[in-house]
């Protein structure tokens, strides 16, 4: 069923009774060419396997409901303002895929390019912003260095003369923005389902079937399913699932929280990131101010967070937007991040044949969803890494080829 204004009209006039399921709900088959575990990035991978590589005998297994992982728990920001040449083209590919998402998938995920501004507060931060902006421009992304005057015109509500960290300017990516996160998984599921990909919800993987160094299927709470290839895209659960294959990863699972205020009339055009504390903010189409900050700081699988991170972000909020004092925080929640040891992702073949791994997304997973699915599908279908994900290898830690955007070292709670 194609979605359009006309369809809404015709359905509306007939009592909205003709809308169809947006994705099929099949029983798992006994065997698939490819099984993708995890329906976050995995849902995108499932779609691109079918759409780009004509691999359609695919199951995407989700242990809970579609979008129940980090896809439905993030602050919905998209951007490609990355510094390192290993990262930048990949995230730029992702941003370009976002720009085609709705028209290609016939689903409105509210891809909203209202821009993202990273504030800077000192000379040294300005230098770092210039460097990042240059790297972005050279990789084909967009970047504008805003001086204080121009920034004041764009965001008059910021506390430019903050007593502690005066705002000196910002690095602006006009094409950055936000996307309605749930709609992303729904859109991919609908399009993939139409191409024949089976989305199996409430199906937790309990074992990986490995015979003579080859992965040949999975054990699940809904029975054993055979597979030609298996791709693991399970974010915060990466270590647990890969342990089923006896593999240990350079990953720790940490909780990252997000927060939202009550709905307000529009006051923030795009995304704003504080340069002197853990705080970034945007306003959703419904009017809630969506904001986030740093990790809780210790290993956790709890999907709930603690108070210090909340205080941190509220302090950051009051530092740059002191009018926010009377806006009220409505809800806080947490997701389990797969924090890799250099802050960058892994999309690679594992030492076990036909078993592929996608993970280590840290906070960056949501914006990467299209490119991650795209490159994972490419890897699984062709056996070779996609050019834009060519450095996201498992062995890079052993080689010392770290992709460390922040230069924070092998400490996941600092990325």
């Amino acid at each position, binding site marked *: 069923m194609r979605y359009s204004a006309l369809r809404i009209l015709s359905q509306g006039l007939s009592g909205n009774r003709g809308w169809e399921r947006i994705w099929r709900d099949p029983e798992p088959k006994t065997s698939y060419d490819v099984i993708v575990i995890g329906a976050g990035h995995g849902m995108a991978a499932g779609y691109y396997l079918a759409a780009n590589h004509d691999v359609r005998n695919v199951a995407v297994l989700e242990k809970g409901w579609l979008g129940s992982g980090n896809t439905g728990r993030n602050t919905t920001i998209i951007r490609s303002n990355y510094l390192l040449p290993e990262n930048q083209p990949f995230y730029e590919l992702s941003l370009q895929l976002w720009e085609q998402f709705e028209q290609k998938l016939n689903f409105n995920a509210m891809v909203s390019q209202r821009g993202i501004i990273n504030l800077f507060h000192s000379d040294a931060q300005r230098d770092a912003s210039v460097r990042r902006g240059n790297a972005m421009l050279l990789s084909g992304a967009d970047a504008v260095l805003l001086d204080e005057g121009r920034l004041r015109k764009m965001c008059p509500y910021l506390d430019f003369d903050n007593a502690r*960290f005066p705002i000196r300017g910002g690095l602006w990516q006009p094409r950055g923005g936000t996307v309605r996160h749930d709609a992303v998984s729904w859109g991919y599921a609908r399009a993939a389902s139409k191409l024949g990909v089976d989305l199996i919800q409430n199906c937790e993987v309990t074992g990986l079937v490995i015979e003579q160094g080859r992965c040949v299927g999975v054990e699940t709470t809904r029975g054993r399913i055979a597979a030609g290839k298996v791709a693991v895209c399970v974010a915060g659960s990466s270590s647990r699932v890969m342990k089923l294959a006896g593999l240990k990863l350079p990953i720790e699972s940490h909780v990252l929280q997000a927060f939202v205020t009550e709905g307000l009339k529009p006051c923030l055009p795009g995304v704003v990131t504080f340069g002197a504390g853990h705080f970034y903010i945007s306003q959703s189409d419904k009017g809630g101010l969506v904001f986030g900050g740093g990790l809780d700081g210790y290993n956790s699988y709890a999907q709930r967070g603690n108070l210090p991170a909340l205080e941190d972000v509220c302090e950051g909020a009051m530092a740059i937007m002191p009018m926010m004092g009377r806006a009220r925080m409505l809800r806080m929640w947490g997701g389990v991040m797969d924090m890799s040891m250099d802050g960058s992702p892994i999309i690679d073949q594992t030492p076990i044949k036909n078993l592929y791994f996608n993970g280590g997304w840290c906070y960056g997973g949501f914006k990467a969803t299209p490119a991650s699915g795209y490159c994972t599908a490419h890897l699984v279908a062709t056996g070779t890494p996609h050019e834009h994900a060519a450095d996201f290898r498992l062995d890079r830690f052993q080689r010392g080829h770290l992709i460390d955007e922040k230069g924070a070292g092998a400490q996941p709670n600092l990325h």
Partner: protein
Amino acid sequence: MSTRLPTGGVLVDRNKPVRFSFNGKKMTGLEGDTLASALLAGNVRVVGRSFKYHRHRGIVGCGPEDPNGLMTLGTGNRLTPNQQATTTRLFEGLSARSQNHWPSLEFDLGGVVDKVSSLTPAGFYYKTFIQPRRAWKHVYEPLIRQAAGLGRPPRDRDPDLYEHFHAHVDLLVIGGGISGLIAASIAGRAGLRVLLLEQFWELGGRTPVDVEMLGDEAPRDWIAERVEELNALENVHLRCRTCAVGVYDHGYVLANERVGEGTGDEGELRNRLWRIRARKIILASGAIERPLCFVNNDVPGVMLASAVRDYVTNFGVSPGDRTVVVTNNDDAYRTVNCLVRAGLDVPMVVDARPVPGPVAAEAKELGVNVVSNRAIANVEGTKGITGVSVCSQAGEGTVLERLDCEVVAVSGGWSPAVHLWSHCSGRLRWDDTRAMFRPDRTRPPLASDGEEQMVVVGSANGMLQLDKVIADAAEGTVTAVRALGGDADPGFLPEVAVQSESPASPVWLMPNGMDLRTRAKAWIDFQNDVKVSDIELAVREGFESSEHVKRYTTLGMATDQGKTSNINGLAILARSLNTPIEQTGTTTFRPPYTAVPMGAIAGKARGSLFKPTRRTPMDAWHDANGAYWEPVGDWRRPYCYLQGEESVDEAVRRECLSVRRSAGIIDASTLGKILVSGPDAGRFLDMMYTNMMSTLRPGRCRYGLMCNDNGFLMDDGVVARLSDESFLCHTTTGGADHIHGWMEEWLQTEWWDWQVHVVNITEQFAQIGIAGPHARKLLSSLGGMNLGAEDLPFMCWIDGQLAGHDVRVFRISFSGELSFEVAVRGSEGLELWRKIIEAGQNFDAGVYGTEALHILRAEVGFIMIGDETDGTVTPQDLGLTWALSRKKEDFLGKRAQERSYLTSPDRWRLVGLLRVEGNTPLAHGAYAVSSENSEFGHTRMIGRVTSSYYSPILDRPIAMALVENGPEMQGTILEFVEKDGRVRAEIVDPVFYHPSAAARN
């Protein structure tokens, strides 16, 4: 119309009128009123517009569960959106405005959406606005954003104050109703430290309204006695107007106390955020009444039955003359009694149950017409109710009769307020006989020791009859008190008769066979406009999980977070899926229970207190002498000192030349100073630094590099050996705390058998740098010690006296010039600084700031941590191999530096750059690009500028860069991409300037 009754209203003082305004209209309420009760008393029935369809909305509840009464309070910098009328206490001069309408509450253009609501069902926006792509950004989204949102945001700096208060208690009791008071009394008598929190400003909860007698006393008297007794106990504290909003791990509770209401002057204390650590928590948060789903159940005048009797009893307010009561349980009959007693008309009780039980007979005795197995077929009216039609509950809605009325009091049963139970993973179970999700006491939130952290009691635990509530509160508290080692005695409990209540019958749709078309007019979430038909549509489209339904329809996502709508929504979902409700489960309850101002969470950490600034002893001098500040780590340092009308660039140039030509003085106190001592100190520093430090002789200094175990350069600085067993390690300004912690970490966790003591003495000493050809003359003129080349050779230090101060003088240089650093006790720093400045006047010496420092070091090719390094650069990359000891088997980072990627010949390495044309510095962070593209056709970057300045002494721009194979390409011209095009620069040695040899002696 709604009005104030001639008598009644236990919470209001009829002798104290309070003037306020609503939408600019002047009104009068009474002291003790909420904004909601005052509005109802003034016959304001419509208080706002709904989020999506802009339908008229009236007050539904009497507390934080009310989804509709959202107001913008105050003006100017105290404008506060989305405040609940039901929890706002009326005060003199309060100004309230309704929200989400244009141009006015009465006539709202947004209401047009309601007229076409069949075209805008749940999730319609996912299916349209797709083409053309640009229209989303420029047309659709701006329109949607403008239509969405509720109140206008504040625009000005919040002038009021917020504070935090920390409390540590044995037992925290959440809720000041009868259960909470019983819990506090039992625990208080047992001598435990008890804190009781109540969100309302009165204690007692529903009991005074709902209960006739407690034992042989009126409930208010019994409660007053308890409160008096508790107030007399030193170990018990009761706090009203304080809502527990979040439960976090290990018994940590956040509560929001509303202190100022906007009545005081600007700068009043508005909220106090309680941060409570409790050994155990008693959750006595009560229950929330559910509405019923029938057609047009959102018309202003449809209210919760409990709220109706609250307004009558507590505020003496009649919500309307004629009230039809609609129920599926016995509890709503309390409202019948209350209304009849107040002399108001109850034309009919519509009881959905086939057999209503004894309470119906009692109501009939009062002359009320009770009909059973009946339902509401329709509510008439838009801005207020004009009447209802009644049908059979079992049927499809055929109207049996029609009644005039102004209020419909609904009760769909009660849902325990389990939110705080769930915040920290307490589990719920569905109780079929009570038709509610209840806390599962076998799976409570856990304490750090794995034991039960929270005990839930009373109606929060699903108890709805008074005798059971009392017994449950006592039993739960006794268990908790005993677990805490207290001696519990519930001897004071009132005797109440065993109550018999006929069971509620779960009614999720009214009538049961509601016509498909009318389901689009049966509301579940009043604020977000979610209807029965929306949930059914979601299910039809495959959104079958409760979370999917929430996210697709926005059910329960409004400011009330679904307090009245969640359970009804889940039940409708279960019904649509044809599964038991326990299988659909609930969505996750998340903090906060009620919304908390951002300012309250930030507390005092605002403005200059956001992060305290570290200041050197000379800070005030700098400030008084033209310092242009920059933040460096937690410190602030002068970037330069402005004189007269000069620009920052001019000041920096003047300061650089002063050092090169005469002398410059800099406050270097922020540099980290870490004292490392003990028999194994040398051996330890050999591990920490890439250099060999154990061979350094006492009295000598050595520049050292520190890498992390990943091989990357993290800090640098000069190490001075003070004695055989002690070293003073200088670090960068930003690195002091980190490096100190780093050393401690290794000593404590890896080499704990080594005898080394590390202490961070950064702030014990002020340090003053004097650099330039006249530096020695300048310092010597202070008198007290010999600083000749033989007395103090380069890279040595000596102790002595200067101008009467005990000092340690290091002869080290970061500029290539003759240079000294003088360390003095922090308390004497400013005095010595002034003396050096004064002496400097004879030698044409000036002070200089960090920018001059950076330029001077770049002129002589010294690297700067943070410029040339970014956590991914090795000493080898920077040509610092001379500082890597080859003799040592091990130092931190050594093994990691041997990995293939780090030894690759085409790593980017340090070079100097000189522009071929042009006289402005290269852009810091500009990239050099190769003439050949990468294998994938991308622009290939082959280097980047890490430092770039205009050198005053050379009178030309200079730069340092990391370039692929750079050192082997001296003389090569590279192209750098800048904003306005490409710039050519030649690779040169990074040492641009050589001070005269005399300077070194």
